[in-house]
């Protein structure tokens, strides 16, 4: 991925994705130059890039081969039911056997998948035209009834769907033609195609009750599935994307222990290992024939100070804590450089709505001390709840504890076990840590975690103005206006919410150099968990 890295440094992640995609489709050097010139690039820069274009172009995908991949979890709860999928192991298996109506690309823009086009006039009523001649693995053709079933089941509480909160905005899904589905929302949302491109909304067969057979329309057919052990998927010869997938077979196992996962990779037993620790990066890079694949995404662990109880009721305490976060130190010593600095707001730089103009809040002991004094908080210790369940939170808490001592603030770090953390401590502690996975759109993230009435409003920050902006931005079709609205919301969160967001974390995966075709999709590691149909083996 070195070339890609260089390339991204030159033109930025958004542009690079567009160009590399074009090259993969077989764009010539002349096309690339034209694209770059259109983008306002300098000719000297473009000249340097065309060499890169050749090497990308030369790497034509090869067909055939079998790979073994390990995810970071394995449990009897491993599932092929899209509604219940909860981790990278489930998502990775899901994208092997299923497709969504749309799929998200390297900039999280929705692209047509099972829907060959989607259209709306008011962002409230959406028409999806289904691709013709798509067949499920058992030969049944894809019909609107399958789509209606796959989406509407999330609204039924008995399904126990993890996407219920997202599905609640959908009023109805109806077949409106032999190959057409109409989705009606309760309120306008310009991001519906993004939501329908996420894992939980992958399309299953109408009336499915037993999901262990994995009958979908995806690039691979399920051959074996043992929850908690492994799955084997073989090429779907009748896949609707011509030429795809490249591999004959993928064996997917889950190995919970990171050390064991990396060892298995380096001994040649695996071709791809998901979620490697930053501490293993040097070891993998130092072994000939192995590489690390890094995906910068919007994942973050955040310090939550509830505004309705405990010390967080005092805004000066919150400001003091925000100035106490030594972001650079945490980035270097905790994430070992595999992260970018965050600014106490949740929209990360890979997102098209990230507001770069917001001044970075510095690590400033004097300001922290000033606000702490102003808050009138005595020298009583402040308990801070952290857990390995929220990635790096224990380490972050300890770094903060060190800084806090310097201004006479005693942070009492309480380390809780990962088991049961989300149900017992997250959202319940006055001061504690949470972790938020990358979400496909800015709107989803803000709705789930920042709207005044959101169940997961971590700091219980309530702002009518914010809610109005959020709803307005959802229906806004003018891109520039929408961007401004998102910028305003980011400023509000940065200034008012009870959250300290130190870093946006990168996902790291290890792989054999023979495995080609990986490019980041900021939903998470393993190409946003959809590596299966993109990778090939260079024998």
């Amino acid at each position, binding site marked *: 991925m070195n070339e890609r890295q260089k390339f991204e440094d030159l033109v930025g992640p958004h542009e690079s994705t567009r160009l590399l995609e074009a090259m993969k489709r077989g764009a010539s050097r002349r096309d690339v130059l034209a694209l770059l010139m259109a983008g306002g690039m300098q000719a000297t820069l473009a000249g340097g890039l065309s060499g890169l274009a050749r090497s990308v172009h030369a790497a034509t995908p090869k067909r055939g081969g079998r790979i073994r991949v*390990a995810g970071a979890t*394995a*449990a*009897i*709860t491993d599932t092929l039911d899209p509604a*219940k999928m*909860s981790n990278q192991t489930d998502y990775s298996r899901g994208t092997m056997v299923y497709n969504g109506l749309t799929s998200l690309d390297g900039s999280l823009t929705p692209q047509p998948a099972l829907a060959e086009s989607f259209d709306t006039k008011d962002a409230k009523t959406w028409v999806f035209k289904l691709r013709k001649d798509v067949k499920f693995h058992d030969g049944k053709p894809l019909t609107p009834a399958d789509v209606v079933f796959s989406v509407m089941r999330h609204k039924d*509480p*008995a*399904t*126990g*769907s*993890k996407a*219920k*909160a997202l599905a609640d905005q959908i009023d109805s899904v109806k077949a409106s033609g032999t190959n057409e589905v109409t989705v009606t929302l309760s309120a306008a949302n310009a991001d519906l195609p993004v939501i329908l491109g996420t894992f939980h909304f992958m399309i299953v067969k109408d009336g499915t009750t037993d999901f262990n057979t994995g009958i979908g329309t995806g690039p691979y057919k399920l051959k074996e599935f*043992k*929850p*908690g*052990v*492994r799955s084997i998927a073989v090429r779907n010869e009748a896949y609707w994307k011509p030429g795809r997938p490249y591999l004959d077979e993928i*064996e997917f*196992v889950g*190995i*919970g*222990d990171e*050390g*064991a996962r990396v*060892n*298995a990779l*380096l*001994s*040649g*037993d*695996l071709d791809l290992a998901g979620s490697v620790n930053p501490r293993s990066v040097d070891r993998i890079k130092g072994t000939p024939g192995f590489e690390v694949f890094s995906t910068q995404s919007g994942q973050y662990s955040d310090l939550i100070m509830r505004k309705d109880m405990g010390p967080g009721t005092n805004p000066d305490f919150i400001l003091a804590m925000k100035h106490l976060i030594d972001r650079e130190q945490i980035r270097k010593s905790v994430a070992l450089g595999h992260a970018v600095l965050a600014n106490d707001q949740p929209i990360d730089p890979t997102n098209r709505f990230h507001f770069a103009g917001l001044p970075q809040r510095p690590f400033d002991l004097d300001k922290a001390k000033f606000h702490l004094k102003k808050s009138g908080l005595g020298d009583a210790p402040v308990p801070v709840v952290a857990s390995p369940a929220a990635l790096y939170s224990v380490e972050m808490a300890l770094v903060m504890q060190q800084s806090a001592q310097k201004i006479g603030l005693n942070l009492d770090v309480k380390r809780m076990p990962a*088991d*049961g953390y*989300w*149900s*017992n401590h*997250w959202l319940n502690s006055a001061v504690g840590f949470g*972790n938020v996975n990358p979400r496909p759109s800015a709107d989803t993230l803000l709705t789930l975690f920042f709207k005044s009435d959101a*169940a*997961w409003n971590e700091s219980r920050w309530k702002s009518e103005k914010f809610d109005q902006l959020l709803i307005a931005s959802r229906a806004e079709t003018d891109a520039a206006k929408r961007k401004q609205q998102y910028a305003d919301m980011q400023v509000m969160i940065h200034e008012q919410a009870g959250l300290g967001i130190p870093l946006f974390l990168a996902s790291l995966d290890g792989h054999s150099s023979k495995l080609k075709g990986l490019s980041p999709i900021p939903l998470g590691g393993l190409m946003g968990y959809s590596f299966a149909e993109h990778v090939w083996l260079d024998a």
Partner: protein
Amino acid sequence: MNLLILRLALQRVALAAVSLLVVSALVFAITAVLPGDAAQAQLGQDATPETLAALRHQMGLDVPAPVRYGRWLAGLLRGQPGESIVTHTPVADMLASRLPNSLLLAAITVVVAVPLALLLGIGAAMYRGSLFDRIVSSAAVAVVSVPEFLVATLAVLVFAVELHWLPALSYGVSFDSPLKMLRSFAMPVLTLCCVMVAQMMRMTRAAVIDQLKAPYIEMVLLKGATPMRTVLAHALPNAVGPIANAVAMTLSYLLGGVIIVETIFNYPGVASLMVDGVTQRDMPLVQTCAMLFCAAYLLLVTLADICSIVANPRLRYR
């Protein structure tokens, strides 16, 4: 003698039934006080009150705990340990897919470890104080003090990552030929042997030495028996009791306690199944696994007692 063994066996079965009942009630109570339930464990961060309630109803968690326990117990008595509340597959099927793996690993380990431990233990006792004894005894202490995960990880680093002799993962390797099977089991068995051989060997050595100090051995020696005959024909039968018990303890550990080996070598056995059950708060699964381990333990200990009765005539006439 047969009558005695029969009486002992009957007594043990009755006791075992009581122990199992107590254990099942204890395990149930402990899983009940663990923070969170199966519905919360499954939904994790994405739980909303509505989905939680619906899922709890689906899992049958809205029924009072004593009633759930009663139902499970009644099912078990009929030979049906129930359905996993998380995956909705019968617990019996889940166990059936994992138990053979655990038994296979245990069997191979036993075949290697027990003869090795007895040989070393008896040898060390016969030549106690010799260089051989000192080397074997201190090596045993050294090996047993190193934690399993370190042995396993070091073995993987050396034999799989550096030398590429053996596969790092033990599952999914073909069992076509004895050689391939040997390769995939070599490291897990090696790791388990490190812990087990040392314990059994120390117990054997101590038991045999204990007998060798007894006055009747002096008589045997005065009669002019060879050292080999002294140990094998006279001392060893009297030492069988403690040795059999040590072996039984280690074997019961092999069935349910090898979670570290299962994790590092990605070997799907019953230990990781039970750990999964605990983290998911899957009561029927946890209960049934606990019953299985407890029953196996009781069975092995009873077998060990029968062994010592058969081997030691004095116990038969008490």
